[in-house]
């Protein structure tokens, strides 16, 4: 046998060894056609599915099939996903797990590693033993960025023993959605409009004094209510102005008595005052009847606040004066307006003392 023939045989032998080694290696590395055990269930729920989402809070769920003792969990992410490479960059949590998943009780993954460091697209967490028949989950809270392109991506979840040898495995598809007109593809921005409303209603347009005016004491009208309903977020204001002008003060006037007036005794804008018997005085008293719940707080203007049955404020015949307000919406706020008067012993008798008060309101939107 020649030396050349021996060299050829040695080369063939070496080639055969390499080929055999390659075959063994490929058997180890390649995904087997028949898994040691397909996970009974495997799922990955991304809390955000939009492209390029950074650190989607991902609920990882499995139901083991095999009874071997798990010690590790390996997740191999799709090549299109960006897996953080820093030490301990992938983090987990079992806080806030839903009570069940897919209709089955979800148990916190036992002793899942709090952090792990990726090796390429794969990351291996430490794991406690899983019991066949139970469903386990945890949140993968950081370390993964979704691809920039929409589509279906496949990750592989593999449970391992301490060697590590594969126990159960499964491929899991997740979907990534494209943005739509710059809006994330997994979101809907919902809008609505609530139009402004303002309703202001007086209970009547005539308000007579309950008795004849008297020098012996204060007499009041029955009263008119003003009801305010409004969605003005900053509230509302009510104003009043009367018709009869007596030196810049509102007044009751009798045409049959030569236009005699019973005018307010104090200047407009003064604090509400108590009427004095046997002294001519006239004015408006405003009381809070209802401060409806759920809205703003109603405040009666100090000049007209009728905290007692004898107080009034002088009406302004030239300018609308605020009588009450609220600082928020109103769902039926009610104020009551009464006119009160006292007369002296010489006030001319007449049956036509009258005044006209204009009451208005507006919302503050």
């Amino acid at each position, binding site marked *: 046998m020649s030396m050349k023939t021996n060299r050829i045989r040695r080369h063939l032998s070496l080639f055969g060894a390499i080929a055999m080694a390659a075959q063994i290696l490929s058997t180890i590395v390649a995904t087997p056609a028949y898994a040691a055990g*397909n996970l009974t269930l495997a799922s990955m729920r991304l809390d955000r599915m939009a492209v390029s989402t950074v650190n989607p809070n991902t609920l990882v769920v499995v139901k083991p099939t095999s009874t071997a003792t798990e010690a590790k969990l390996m997740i191999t992410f799709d090549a299109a996903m960006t897996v953080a490479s820093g030490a301990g960059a992938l983090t987990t949590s079992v806080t806030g797990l839903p009570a069940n998943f897919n209709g089955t009780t979800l148990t916190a993954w036992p002793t899942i590693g709090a952090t792990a460091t990726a090796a390429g697209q794969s990351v291996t967490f430490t794991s406690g033993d899983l019991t066949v028949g139970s469903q386990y989950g945890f949140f993968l809270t950081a370390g993964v960025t979704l691809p920039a392109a929409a589509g279906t991506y496949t990750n592989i979840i593999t449970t391992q023993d301490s060697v590590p040898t594969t126990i159960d495995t*499964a*491929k899991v*598809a997740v979907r990534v959605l494209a943005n739509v*007109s710059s809006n994330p593809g997994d*979101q*809907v*921005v919902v809008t*609505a409009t*609530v139009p402004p409303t303002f309703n202001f209603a007086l209970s009547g347009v005539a308000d007579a004094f309950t008795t004849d005016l008297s020098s012996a004491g204060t007499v009041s009208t029955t009263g008119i209510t003003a009801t305010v309903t409004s969605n003005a977020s900053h509230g509302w204001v009510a104003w009043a102005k009367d018709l009869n002008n007596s030196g810049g003060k509102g007044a009751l006037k009798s045409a049959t008595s030569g236009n005699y007036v019973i005018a307010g005794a104090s200047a407009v804008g003064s604090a509400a005052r108590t009427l004095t018997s046997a002294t001519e005085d006239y004015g408006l008293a405003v009381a809070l009847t209802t401060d409806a719940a759920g809205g703003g707080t109603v405040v009666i203007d100090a000049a007209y606040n009728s905290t007692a049955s004898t107080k009034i404020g002088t009406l302004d015949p030239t300018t609308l004066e605020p009588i009450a307000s609220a600082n928020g919406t109103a769902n039926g706020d009610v104020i009551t307006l009464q006119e009160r008067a006292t007369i002296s012993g010489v006030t001319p008798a007449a049956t036509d003392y009258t005044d006209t008060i204009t009451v208005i309101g507006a919302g503050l939107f």
Partner: protein
Amino acid sequence: MQNILAIFSVLLIAALPSTANYKLNNFSLGNGGTNTAGTANYKLNATVGEQSGPNASTVNYSFGSGGNATQQANVPTVTLDNPSSYYNKLHFVIGVQGNPTDAVYAVAISSDNFVTTNYVKSDGTVGGTLAATDFRTYAGFGSAAGSLVIGLQPSVSYKVKAKAARGKFTESAFGPTSTAATVDPYLTFSLSPNTLSIGTLVAGSVINAPTPIALTFATNGASGGNVYSSGLNAGLKSQTTPFYKISAVNGDLTATSEGYGAQLTSVSQATGGPLSKVTPFDATGNNVAAIDGTIRSMLSSTGPVTGGVGSLLLMAKSAAQTPAATDYTETLTIIASASF
């Protein structure tokens, strides 16, 4: 002279019956078979006086000669397919080829053209050995509806072949192969539109969004999947002072002064599933389900689904004192997952 007679006698025996076209190669008055030759696991079905060859065959057919061949079951066929985008199993149907109903069949499977042969076990999984219990009748393999081989890997092409038997010494050869492939697991999902104006609310009235949110969902996940929703503000929230919110509520909007929610008005699928509404999103009338900060399932399926469609209708009601604003906004996040 004795030698001459002996040669003549041999020639007489060697002169077998024949015509111009046919010749009987062998005939006998019976064989010497025995049922006692064997071990605990194997028995010998032996004959004496019959030839066993030659093996006549083509690519598709082979001729088995001798007594054993005549008592073998007919060679069955098997058809392998993937009718529902399976990723971990395949469907097959045995072709009995005239075998009686009590014939039993075994199915071999391979992902490498039978360089390595595995077998469909009695529970549908794949194993490296073929046990007597792995032989099943045609009915045991699901009759015409067929059966599933499970525990396969996604995106792998498999070949199967079957053989039949009916009692001892009747096992046929494997029949022709049939090929099918698993696919990768998939999940498709979409929602539209991504912006939606409910419009102008009227105090005291339940207002429906002008269009529902269309959801599409499909998966080949063996355990189905879910569509979930959550809301950033847990209601429609004005983005201006005083940042008032029309809160997300569960229940009848008719009976509440103010609220906001959703209901699934319809759900359907092309195949599989079914895709079902999850309570309280199955509400009707003016009843709604709250969409708040918790991720909640709206649609669910326990099996694979194709062509799943759902319509999510948003409804809102304002009260008289609901602050006026043109910027009530909620951001819904709607996601889906599948279980494989």
